[in-house]
């Protein structure tokens, strides 16, 4: 394009000068090794020094970061987690707060998108100065694994069931030695474990052949893979498996294909809305046979919409029979009316155990928390049910072992937890717990060191 020479020159000059100026400015931040003269650079950004490097004095506020699914596909699950987190934070503050400081939560939306999650995590750690991250989904953790390791901030999350995390995370049983630590802890029972419980129960009930219908998202697939491997290991066989897309207007074709095969029971693993469509189609089609539901589907909405055809269907849910579930439920129900889902009690646990780690450590730095999550959650200490009890016990110089609402929260070397799996059956218009598979039985399905 034709250009005006004078504008060209002055623009060129501007860019050159700006560039040179920029380089001069940055040169203060460039050096050979060491901390050197990055000092002026550091002071610009270092406004929030709460509990950061070398904080000798206890800070006034400690912040936890919560990447949340405020928009996006799973946003209907967030209210329960937000409520549980806020209730736990209130409880912690009412008991005096970790290190007598006030605990706060910085909640930011990631829409369950790993790119957004990366930006949010950086922002939480670098700008909001959080001591720990309470949140993140499997679909965010898995592709960002290397990034999270570099971030070196404990991630205590109630969400991910993914088998990817079975052998990743935690402190590898060596709290003192941080060189082998992998920073990610989860307070929710992994898919491998609770699907094993479910599969074991299915075999016990005499359901030897299985049909499967599942969605293509990771959570759904991972659930089915876990279930099927435990199921087949115990003598069951899968007759047919159909994968479907989410949000379809009708699942009749998929169901019709599935039910051509012969099986005693069929497993459905779909997100709630698609599952309701599929189960309604199943009910209309009169296909019958025993439905087994994934844990997210044992909710009231499913029964309300599908109706009485669903009677007798069951699903296995972890995380409702922790030792201190009732304590949690009482406090939670006073804090609002969001539904309790499978991830709500683990969110409570995540806040409690992290606050206790700070209390034990005596400082609110990421490294200190990472080193103390193991010791406050397992071992021979006094069993405590809440932060308040734990704070008191620690003040008395005792070791503690936090027993949670979802599970006993005894972190394994890989930062995972075991819990009892409740079997909930649809009866008379609601899901009621009819049986359970104990944590000890469930543990048998998982090889030592593999979880």
């Amino acid at each position, binding site marked *: 394009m034709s250009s005006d020479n004078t504008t060209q020159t002055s623009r060129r000059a501007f860019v050159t000068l700006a560039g040179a100026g920029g380089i001069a400015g940055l040169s203060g931040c460039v050096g050979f090794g060491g901390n050197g003269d990055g000092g002026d650079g*550091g002071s610009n950004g270092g406004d929030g020094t709460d509990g950061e490097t070398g904080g000798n004095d206890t800070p006034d506020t400690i912040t936890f970061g919560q990447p949340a699914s405020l928009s996006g596909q799973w946003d209907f699950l967030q209210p329960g987690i937000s409520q549980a987190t806020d209730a736990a934070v209130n409880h912690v503050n009412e008991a005096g707060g970790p290190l007598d400081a006030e605990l706060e939560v910085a909640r930011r939306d990631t829409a369950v998108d790993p790119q957004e999650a990366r930006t949010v995590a950086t922002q939480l750690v670098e700008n909001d100065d959080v001591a720990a991250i309470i949140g993140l989904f499997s679909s965010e953790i898995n592709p960002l694994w290397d990034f999270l390791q570099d971030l070196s901030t404990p991630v205590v999350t109630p969400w991910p069931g993914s088998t990817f995390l079975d052998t990743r995370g935690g402190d590898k049983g060596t709290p003192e030695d941080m060189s082998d630590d992998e920073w990610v802890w989860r307070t929710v029972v992994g898919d491998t474990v609770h699907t094993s419980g479910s599969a074991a129960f299915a075999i016990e009930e005499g359901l030897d052949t299985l049909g499967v219908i599942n969605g293509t998202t990771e959570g759904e697939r991972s659930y089915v893979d876990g279930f099927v491997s435990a199921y087949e290991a115990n003598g069951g066989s899968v007759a047919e498996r159909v994968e479907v897309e989410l949000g379809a207007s009708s699942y009749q074709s998929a169901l019709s294909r599935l039910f051509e095969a012969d099986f005693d029971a069929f497993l459905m693993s779909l997100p709630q809305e698609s599952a309701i469509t599929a189960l309604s189609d199943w009910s209309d089609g009169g296909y019958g046979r025993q439905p087994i539901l994934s844990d997210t589907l044992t909710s009231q909405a499913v029964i309300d919409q599908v109706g009485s055809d669903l009677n007798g269907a069951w699903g296995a849910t972890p995380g409702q029979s922790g030792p201190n579930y009732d304590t949690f439920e009482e406090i939670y129900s006073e804090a609002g009316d969001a539904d309790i889902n499978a991830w709500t009690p683990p969110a409570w646990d995540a806040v409690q155990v992290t606050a206790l780690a700070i209390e034990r450590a005596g400082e609110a730095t990421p490294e200190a928390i990472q080193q103390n999550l193991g010791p406050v959650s397992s071992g021979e200490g006094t069993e405590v049910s809440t932060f308040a009890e734990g704070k008191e016990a620690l003040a008395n110089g005792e070791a503690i072992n936090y027993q949670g609402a979802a599970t006993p929260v005894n972190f394994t070397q890989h930062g995972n937890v075991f819990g009892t799996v409740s079997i909930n059956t649809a009866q008379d218009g609601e899901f009621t717990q009819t049986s359970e598979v104990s944590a000890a039985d469930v543990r048998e399905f998982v090889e030592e060191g593999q979880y």
Partner: protein
Amino acid sequence: MSVLDRVPTENGDLALLAGVCCVLIGGLFAVTPLRAQLPSALYVFVEVGILFVIYGLLVLGLDLQYGHTGLVNFGHVAFFAVGAYGTAMLSAQDTFAGIGLGYPWPLALGVGVVAAALVGLGVSATSIRLRGDFLAIVTLAAAEILHSIFVNFEGIFGGNVGILGVPRPIAALVSDADTRLVATLLVIGGITLVALAGITRITSAPYGRVLRAIRADELVTRSVGKSTVTYKTQAFVYGAALAGLAGGLFALYNGAVAPGFFTIQVTVTVWIGMLLGGAANHRAVLAGLAIIMGLRLISRFALDVTPVSSDVFASIRLIVVGLILVAVIRYRPAGIWGDAQELGVDR
């Protein structure tokens, strides 16, 4: 003669110079003990900056396709994904799901670019002869099909988990977090500047004039004897190759690829950036992309000062993005820096 007069300015030579400098400086950070200090509050900005220069390659490619040749490509993220997955699958070691072959990363990067170009060739072959909005549909459909394939063939592409364990060359050389961020930004930024130089070269040459003639009126261009299909196909394939390069660089930066990184959001962001800045003006489209990504970033911080709850805020942000697109088309279709007459949108 002042120093300023001696700095080259024609045809993107300045960009080439700047680009090579950036890559060299970035390389210096990577291989020598030279270290940078970065205040931690700025990490977020540098990370978004790295994403910006990667998306910058995307927008440059799209500008070549739409701004210069008038091809409406609404599946641009597909080429980004192909480049990324190609590079990832060839170079990943010990991936949790899917295939990882463990070849050296320069080879993988090259393969990623070529793969994206080939897919671009395939897609363009189907509809390069059709009207603008038909091409939009076909490219959109192609992107959806590719997304479906990546998600469904779990054994090959890793499903929703994706391909993990991709080598990260810069991270491997530099262990200090500050320096690593700065080095990555400089190296990838430098590559984008070199690409800018290359694109500027192509489009200010007579080749570029033919492309713009095709955009303005294809029939006339054909009547003077130019094989418009060839030119259009070439422009499309170059744009796809650039997107593939962006994808490969992304894979090598992030160390993993997953379908969640390649959604239609990427296409929409790049389109809005291009239209906002002014299509057919390379620096303008980069500026437009910077504005739209900057807005997103600033709005995150704005959350702290707005009185609404964060889930309301998240929806409002997206509503604003949609309305920006509508407003740009309505009130300033040439974009902020574009030339209305040149683009044929003056009324």
